[in-house]
């Protein structure tokens, strides 16, 4: 059995917020810090009113009654603290204390020193002590694009390409002879960064008909941006935008008009007939269709085609179909943060689906991996704006992360022409970096982690 003093000390320590650690470690014994103390609220005599709180008057009365009861406890706690504190502070000075509002909440503001903090925690009616701190509005992050542009021009490549270390891989291959299908809004093939890259283009209309056009066009800008990240070349300012700049693009415009699953199936079939190695799909269904996994299974087992699919922009706890099926190689987005670090973007989806009794896939955890998907600089069809014509822009989304992975897979396939698709998937997953360590993989934020193409290549032997 613990002796009483030790027991009291242990209980007291649990009341002190861990956020005090730097203060306790770095301050002198008499250095003062503002703190908020939370004390025990008196028990309620009656259960709280159910439903909408009766009348406002009775609600106010209840708050006033509680405040009075709390004031008694508060007075006792603060007086005991001041008395105990005066015994350890210089000149028998009492620590400053003050109430907050009418004491409707069981909290007060106090001054603490490393010596008085444990004395406050020892008070039986103290529940917790937190350091006072600055609070601020959660505001949209202001991005310093000038700095980002300057850095990318200095590096000669986008931050995403730099993060993935593609320069090292480019000494070996740039994805030559690897064919990547992009099922999207189309592509503006005349874009200077995509010169010579679009090997074939087709429009699939909502009735599933294949329409051949002389000029490859984009029904929006999404497809051209995705294509630029996979296989784009350099901008006029010397910034490389594409992960695999020598890979061939086979683009099916399936997201034009009222596209349906039939449109997509026809696009996939077209890509298969073209003999592509990878299919990039930055798209989603209107509702969950787990049986679409059969299509991905056919792609992998019968054709050795890697389906790279965006997991969605619906935040943690959600996922998009068909990226959330077992055989989709699904991709979440990371963003660059201060200090050269990166983190999963708030919008990046991730969730697990449970199939009890299914031994092979009882738990499907998504995404599989993550890649750069915020402030991704890539090509768009020429866009007239008041200050000129723009051919590049920054975009955010798992749609932007997905082509980074498709491009990286193309580099691996080009460097290791014998490696089967199953090995490519394994290498990308196993070498991915999860900041929490391998034991946390896979989870619903990082999946297996941020892909590390150079390590994946080494893993392929």
């Amino acid at each position, binding site marked *: 059995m613990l002796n009483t003093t030790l027991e009291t000390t242990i209980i007291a320590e649990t009341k002190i917020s861990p956020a005090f650690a730097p203060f306790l470690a770095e301050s002198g014994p008499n250095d003062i810090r503002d703190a908020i103390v939370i004390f025990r609220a008196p028990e309620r005599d009656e259960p709280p009113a159910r439903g909408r709180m009766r009348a406002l008057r009775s609600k106010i009365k209840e708050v006033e009654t509680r405040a009075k009861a709390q004031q008694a406890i508060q007075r006792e706690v603060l007086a005991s603290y001041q008395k105990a504190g005066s015994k350890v502070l210089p000149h028998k000075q009492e620590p400053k204390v003050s109430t907050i509002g009418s004491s409707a909440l069981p909290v007060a503001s106090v001054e603490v020193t490393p010596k008085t903090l444990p004395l406050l925690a020892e008070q039986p009616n103290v529940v917790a002590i937190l350091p006072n701190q600055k609070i601020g509005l959660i505001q949209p992050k202001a*991005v310093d*694009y000038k700095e980002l542009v300057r850095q990318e021009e200095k590096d000669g490549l986008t931050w995403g390409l730099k993060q993935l270390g593609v320069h090292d891989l480019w000494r070996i291959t740039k994805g030559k002879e690897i*064919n990547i299908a992009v099922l999207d809004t189309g592509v503006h093939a005349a874009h200077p960064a995509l010169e010579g890259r679009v090997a074939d283009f087709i429009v699939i209309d909502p*009735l*599933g008909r294949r329409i051949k056009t002389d000029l490859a066009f984009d029904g*929006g*800008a*999404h497809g051209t*941006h995705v294509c630029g990240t996979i296989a784009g070349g350099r901008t006029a300012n010397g910034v490389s935008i594409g992960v695999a700049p020598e890979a061939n693009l086979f683009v099916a415009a*399936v*997201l034009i008009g009222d596209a*349906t*699953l*039939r*449109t997509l*199936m*026809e696009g996939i*079939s077209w890509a298969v*007939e*073209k*003999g592509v190695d990878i299919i990039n799909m*930055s*798209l*989603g*269904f*209107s*509702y*969950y*269709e*787990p*049986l679409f*996994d*059969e*299509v991905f299974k*056919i792609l*992998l*087992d*019968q*054709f*050795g*085609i890697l389906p790279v699919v965006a997991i969605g*922009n619906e935040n943690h706890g959600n996922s998009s179909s068909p990226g959330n099926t*077992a055989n989709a190689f699904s991709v979440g987005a990371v963003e660059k943060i201060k200090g050269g670090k990166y983190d999963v973007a708030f919008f990046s989806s991730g969730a697990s689906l449970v199939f009890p009794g*299914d031994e*092979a*896939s009882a738990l499907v955890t998504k995404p599989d991996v993550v890649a750069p998907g*915020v*402030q991704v600089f890539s090509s768009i069809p020429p866009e007239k704006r008041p200050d000129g014509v723009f051919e590049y*822009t*920054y*975009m*955010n*989304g*798992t*749609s932007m992360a997905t082509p980074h992975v498709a491009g990286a897979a193309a580099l691996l*396939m080009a460097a290791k*022409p*014998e490696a*089967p698709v*199953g090995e490519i998937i394994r290498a990308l997953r196993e070498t991915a970096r999860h900041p929490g360590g391998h034991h946390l993989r896979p989870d619903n934020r990082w999946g297996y982690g941020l892909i590390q193409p150079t390590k994946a290549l080494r893993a392929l032997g």
Partner: protein
Amino acid sequence: MNFGNVHPKISREFSVRLGRLNPRDKVRAIVMLRAEGNGVARARRLSRAERQSAAEMISQSAEAALPEIDQILEKFEGHRLAEHPNALGAVPVETTADGVIALARADCVKTILEDQTILPIVAAESNS
């Protein structure tokens, strides 16, 4: 996989939607047919030509199921929306809810997916 669906070849979500249709309402669906393939591609890299030949093999093999599919569709006021199965062994059809269930009971059918809407995963332009 067991998705807790009424029929294992139709997803729970599609089953629920079928259950809401009137008897003569039509629905469009993609029927995935059983087709022969080598099934080794995950473990061995295929060349482009090998893939194209595998696509042809699957499409031709699935073709054998069409007479049975057509018979079922005829019974349920349905019809095919494509002349031949595609490279995945899939063929689009239009029929009633009962027609979809009857198709799912056929041995030559692997799965049936509703021809639902697809959308781009919307990206936000973040140019300053």
